[in-house]
């Protein structure tokens, strides 16, 4: 059941500022030795779905993907908008479904699955929560209806690719009882072409964990990134926002070991490939592709950029193609937010 909580937008913004601040501090340590060499994507057609309230590759706001799309385009890829009223075009090398807040219809899932089984590739950015600013000035936080565990498209990807999203939010419980949702993935990493050459930390801004089956199967699954052992998958985060005090509940929450944040999978013939990332802000202009100063090419989280480009290259089978070096200016932190409680008893009381 979806639970809804409203709280003052200022408080929510302060939470996000905390996340950004932590991430900037972490990434700036490595910014000076940042360099990129990624394969070119000439002739690659990438289709973005936008019918289910996904992030748009043409949106230049903080919630948009225009920077990712611009990078892909500069590497030679052609960016298209997917028309769900017909089958996915034969020239589609990759379909991107970036953080929908409305679940895909069965008809869309069926089209997508048929496309995958015919050798297609899919990049999914899954979002655990949806945040909506209401006209009354409050912010509405809900569990995301898209990509629910064991339903819709995830049912198919679990059956045939051994990968699905979980209905949780990866958090760390601070000693004071606060739950941290923004972090850098510093846990174990797999040996995979997508991760090749990536040395910096990868920033997440609220992720759901990815369920995977890496046992001996007709498909091949590689968990790419893990949260640290101090994190677990909270399934009642809305309750936390409402009540302000919640902890790990065994049997209900996802245990803290091996919480995958991004997973790559391919079928036995290695013709169709999937990458699922548990956080859509991992790739947004205002999240993983944030620049500092704003609107420059100085990416705050260069590893996120490299990860995304190499993921696309692997998905379209261009990971062995000739590389092109990309260099970006060193980012300069411009925000120094003060920590602020995520939710207080007062705000919880107001919500009631």
């Amino acid at each position: 059941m979806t639970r809804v909580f409203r709280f003052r937008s200022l408080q929510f913004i302060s939470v996000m500022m905390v996340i950004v601040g932590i991430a900037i501090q972490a990434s700036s340590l490595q910014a000076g030795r940042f360099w990129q060499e990624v394969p070119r994507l000439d002739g690659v057609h990438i289709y973005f779905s936008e019918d289910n309230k996904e992030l748009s590759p043409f949106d230049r706001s903080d919630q948009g993907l225009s920077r990712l799309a611009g990078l892909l385009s500069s590497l030679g890829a052609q960016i298209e908008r997917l028309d769900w009223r017909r089958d996915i075009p034969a020239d589609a090398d990759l379909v991107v479904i970036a953080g929908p807040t409305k679940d895909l219809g069965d008809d869309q899932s069926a089209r997508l699955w048929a496309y995958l089984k015919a050798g297609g590739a899919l990049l999914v950015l899954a979002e655990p929560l949806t945040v909506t600013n209401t006209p009354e000035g409050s912010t509405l936080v809900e569990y995301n209806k898209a990509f629910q565990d064991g339903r819709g498209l995830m049912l198919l990807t679990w059956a045939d690719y051994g990968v699905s999203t979980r209905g949780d939010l990866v958090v760390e419980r601070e000693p004071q009882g606060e739950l941290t949702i923004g972090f850098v993935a510093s846990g174990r990493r797999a040996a995979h072409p997508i991760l090749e050459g990536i040395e910096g930390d990868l920033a997440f801004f609220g992720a759901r964990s990815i369920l995977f089956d890496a046992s001996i199967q007709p498909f091949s699954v590689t968990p790419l990134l893990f949260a640290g052992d101090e994190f677990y998958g909270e399934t009642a985060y809305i309750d936390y926002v409402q009540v302000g005090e919640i902890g790990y509940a065994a049997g209900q929450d996802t245990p803290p070991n091996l919480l995958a944040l991004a997973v790559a999978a391919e079928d036995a013939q290695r013709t169709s490939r999937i990458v699922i990332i548990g956080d859509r802000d991992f790739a947004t202009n205002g999240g993983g592709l944030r620049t500092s100063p704003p609107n420059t090419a100085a990416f705050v989280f260069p590893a996120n950029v490299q990860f995304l480009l190499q993921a696309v290259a692997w998905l379209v089978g261009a990971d062995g193609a000739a590389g092109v070096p990309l260099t970006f200016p060193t980012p300069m932190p411009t925000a120094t937010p003060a920590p602020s409680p995520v939710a207080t008893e007062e705000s919880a009381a107001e919500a009631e």
Partner: protein
Amino acid sequence: MRRIQWVVMIGLAVSLLAGGLGVGRAQQDTRPLVVVVEGRRPLDTAAMTNIGTVGISQLADQFRQLGARVQFARLDGPLSPEARVVVIARPLRSLRLLETAYLWQHLVRGGALLLALDPEEFFLAGRNVRPRYNRSGLGPLIAQDYGLTVGDTFLTEPWYAGSSIQKLENTYGLAFAELSGEPITAPLAQYDVPVWVWGARSLAVDPLGVGSAAAPLLAVQAAYAETNSGVFRTRAVPTPAVALQYDAGTDLPGGLFTVAARAMRTSSGARIAILGDSELLQNGYGLARDGAVVRYPGNAIFTGRLAAWLLGLPEEAWPSLPAGWTWIALDGDPADWEGQALAPTSDEQEGGEGAYDLAEVAAFADDRYLYLLARTYNDPAQPVWLELTRNDGATVRITAEGALLSTPDGRQTAVPDAGLAVGSVLEARVPLRVAGTGRALTTVCLGVAEQADARPVDCLGRPLSVPVARTRAPADALWERHMLVTIYSTAGVYLRQGPSTSTPVQATLRYGTTLAALGRTADGAWIRVQDARYAGWVAAYLLTPNGDFSTLPVLSESAG
């Protein structure tokens, strides 16, 4: 040395065995594969392995006769890439995403799908049909890409009642070929042969779309399309709370409703056929047999040709008219008279222009109709009629609109189910209850319809012999416009002259005979029935009607 010999012999044997196995592996079955989805889970469909009433083993045999191999499979995993046709008949459960995805992948690969659905909540053998097709992903996909939309409707005849529709055997009716020139239904259209259905839902067909072409195949003339599935009982609710009645604004008003359609993707070659009724292809219903003869030839022709189309066979290989039936189309073309045992009567030329001068007349009868073929010395330029004279002196004047029976005592009776067509020859069809079952006619005359005195222009100078063919008429012209009753009694049922056991028995009707119900007695105990061969009264309790007898008009006991 002996040891070496043994080794050589064993090696030879092994190599022969391996070679044999290798050859076996190399031989691939190139016949097209038809996969019938069956099993309690996930969809609970009619099964090809079921040779009983609700099975579809007869359909599987039709595919085999067309050169296909048929396998059953559960739709709990992707379909084999070898599958050419997938059959899903009467799913009782809803199509979920997994099934939708597997089917769609099959279609994207260029496969074919035969989907036979029944109305939602339709009560079958103690269970309700719940395919929830339009709530599944498959409905929108097929509507979008193929132009076929399935209506959540139940096609209702004027004589249906809330009580009568609760039994499947009471909801049979007739569908006819759409006049779209479809080769699949061409023989049905040419010979006016119906396809039997048992409770159907409607389809909407959008014939033209980007990359697709669709066509309706069969249509039902219904009073209206009921959209509230609450009219059916369920296991939990034995008495439906919703009345079966036309509700303006929600139900679809009466007219012709498509109940079967086909569509094709031009890019992939994928083919889909959707039937709004599954019984039309089940063993005990549409594909039932009386011994070696199919009971409903229209259903056998339709499903056979549909199967051939789904397999992508060339049209020359499609099954045509089955043996044991009379195939005479009223079209003025004598081509389909070949093979009939005839004893034609010639007539001398009278002189003049010859357009209304009979040259030769032939006739034969099957179990329901008398068929006449007349040639004139020249093609007639005006509408004409034929008139036959029975041995008892009664005459039947046949026009394109019907016939008029005139008996020697002066009574005249309209015969709407007779017909005449003029082409290179004159062809007439007269029901035997009017033409009589005698082996000869006293004479046959020709007249011009516009002549005021209505006297014949020319008559045969000799009696006309009427051989009786051992074939059955595939359709009855009366069926289309009336409530139908069928004899489902294993013993013969008496057809009586009047609505009483004291009246003479005219005939004994056998199991499976279907007649039109024209009226009833005031107490409803007797039903006036008629077909091309018989007319009389039958006790109501011996009949299985496709409606409620109370909707029939009350007739006087002397009717007929």
